[in-house]
């Protein structure tokens, strides 16, 4: 099927066939990264603006490399803090960028819904690179790509997503995407970090790590933000790590072919022990590599496939 959307805002709005389309495109993009000369002319003359209102090294760099390997002109526009603090409203910033005729705007913003707001007011394509606790679709796509690459398929797999689900856009995008691909998802964490009515998203909820990971084909550990203690969500990092940290001992009861994933950056010794993060089940660096391929696919589908 052909890609028809102007924007990539979230996994919730995508059909399973569209997800497969992006993943297949990403596989062919990945081949480019293996070449001696990592550059194709696909997006020559196209402009990609990285509009990052939140600090990000990994995602921004990944989009930048993706754009450059496709020969697009990539401009990084970093704005710290909220649009309100900055004095210029998000919509005004968007209108100014629009006036420079970009082909794709990649946006990260702390406010859930900010990319949707931009998409409504910009003629060019908008890619959501993470909005608040809402969605991070390219992360979910690279996770799905990694799982499919390792397991050969997606349907029927059991996934455990562990940690601070309440505040995680990665968890939401993966839940939406994995459910569409026929996967079984269990979310696990202390009840304070599981969002209300989470079961209605079609997932199982567990409050015991061992129970959640026992039959999992994939364990996705989420990053714990240190400020969660101030919010009263957990008593201490120490206790969280004791109860919810993934250690070699806990992995003993897991499937022998389990995959350990993490969206990064890892809090070593908190949600993942170093032995697990670097161990033989970990595919964390594969995720990063596939991130570039998925973002090349996203940029290509939004900016390149029509005119090509």
């Amino acid at each position: 099927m052909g890609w028809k959307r102007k924007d990539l805002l979230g996994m919730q709005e995508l059909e399973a066939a569209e997800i497969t389309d992006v993943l297949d495109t990403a596989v062919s993009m990945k081949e480019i990264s293996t070449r001696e000369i990592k550059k194709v002319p696909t997006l020559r003359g196209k402009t990609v603006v990285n509009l990052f209102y939140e600090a990000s090294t990994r995602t921004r760099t990944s989009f930048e490399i993706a754009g450059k390997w496709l020969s697009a002109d990539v401009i990084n526009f970093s704005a710290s803090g909220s649009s309100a603090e900055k004095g210029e409203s998000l919509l005004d910033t968007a209108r100014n960028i629009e006036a420079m005729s970009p082909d794709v705007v990649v946006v990260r913003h702390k406010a859930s819904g900010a990319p949707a707001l931009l998409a409504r007011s910009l003629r060019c394509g908008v890619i959501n690179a993470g909005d608040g606790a809402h969605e991070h679709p390219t992360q979910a796509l690279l996770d799905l790509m990694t799982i499919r690459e390792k397991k050969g398929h997606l349907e029927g797999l059991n996934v455990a997503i562990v940690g601070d689900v309440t505040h995680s856009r990665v968890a939401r995008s993966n839940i939406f995407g994995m459910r569409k691909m026929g996967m079984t998802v269990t979310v696990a964490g202390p009840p304070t970090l599981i969002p209300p009515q989470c079961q209605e998203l079609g997932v199982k909820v567990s409050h015991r790590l061992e129970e959640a990971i026992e039959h999992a084909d994939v364990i996705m550990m989420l990053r714990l933000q240190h400020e969660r203690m101030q919010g009263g969500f957990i008593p201490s990092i120490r206790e969280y790590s004791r109860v919810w940290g993934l250690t070699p001992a806990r992995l003993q009861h897991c499937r022998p072919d389990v995959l350990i994933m993490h969206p990064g950056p890892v809090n070593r010794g908190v949600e993942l022990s170093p032995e697990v993060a670097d161990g033989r089940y970990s595919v964390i660096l594969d995720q990063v590599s596939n991130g570039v391929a998925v973002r090349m696919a996203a940029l290509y589908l939004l900016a390149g496939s029509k005119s090509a």
Partner: protein
Amino acid sequence: MSVEHGRASLLIRNGRVVDPAGGVDQVQDVLITDGRIARLGRGLKAPAGTEVIDATGKVVCPGFVDMHVHLREPGFEYKETIASGTRAAAAGGFTAVACMANTFPVNDNRAVTDYILARARVEGVVRVYPIGAVSRNLEGTQLAEMAEQAEAGCVAFSDDGRCVMNAELYRRAMEYALPFGTPVISHAEDCHLARGAPMNEGLVSTELGLSGQPGAAEEVMVARDIILAELTGAHLHIAHISTAGAVRMVREAKARGVRVTAEVTPHHLLLTDEAVRTYDPSCKMAPPLRTKRDVEACLEGLIDGTIDCVATDHAPHATSEKEGEFAEAANGIVGLETAVPLLLDRLVRPGVIDLPTLVTRCSTAPARLLNLPGGTLAAGADADVTILDLERAWTVEPAAFQSRSRNTPFAGQSGVGAPWLTLVGGVKVTP
């Protein structure tokens, strides 16, 4: 008010007169002289020089009273002024409004009350009744000078927009207000439970990744305030009730004989948190839009009288404050010009609520619970009259609002049934 009581006589002929206070619901004439209701009856003779208004097919009601608006003056005139806000009220069928204290400076002392009333006399189009603050500068730490404010004309006391978290101070406020006979109006929102979250907590907030505040944030405070009303014997009024649990507690408290009343907004009767899915800041308000179950409970409460009245919580904001990121947008929507049309089309027309009940909730009840002179068409009463045209088709066009602000989630919606003519003191004030 700027309008003098009309000297000329006025005869409203042949309308369906609905006056719940007098038990009237029949086609009659209403004769107005010297700005007061002179007589109700059939085939009344118009004295010489009387202007006749043909109200055939229309509904003639005592003037509607909106007991919860934000007129924003002094201090936030870019959002609304007493002039523009009262024009909006007149256009929306309201003959009186009670305005909340969260102006700048706050209406927490007599000077500000006097100022508001002075502006209303000069520029006001409908009657303006100020509501004084409970605490100085709405800080919740020290009582405002309520006695002087009551003397100056404040008809109730509220820190609306903020919840008085200190139960001891709130208890004292309720006690202190007892001699004035004024209600204390509670903005029930536990700020710790609510955490400043921009929407209701539930499946929709989970899907949208917006932080949600549970209905319990409201219910905890409704429970506390009912207990304090029992302790003090004060008249407690719950502003903008929005949850099934809060409605249930008010119903139980009333049955026990506690002096508690409540209001609900049109948007909490008509919209749920599903409306937030577009991240449209015009769907952001406090309390937030709740669930279908809550909406049904509010409707049930409005019908059975647990909820005494409808109030708009008219909260004007500039476009720039309502067009950006949802979590950062200002709380509140305008309501004066959409409330009556929406209620007529969405509730009266399909038969969810009958017309006399609506008139009770929009006129009789709010006038009574604020001890105002309106809410009746009895002979001798001020001729504050709202005439409705149940067949008039409308579309919400924010650009055409009398209000200075445009923030409404109902833009573009249409329906049938709207205010036709508003009279204050026998003078036509419809813009």
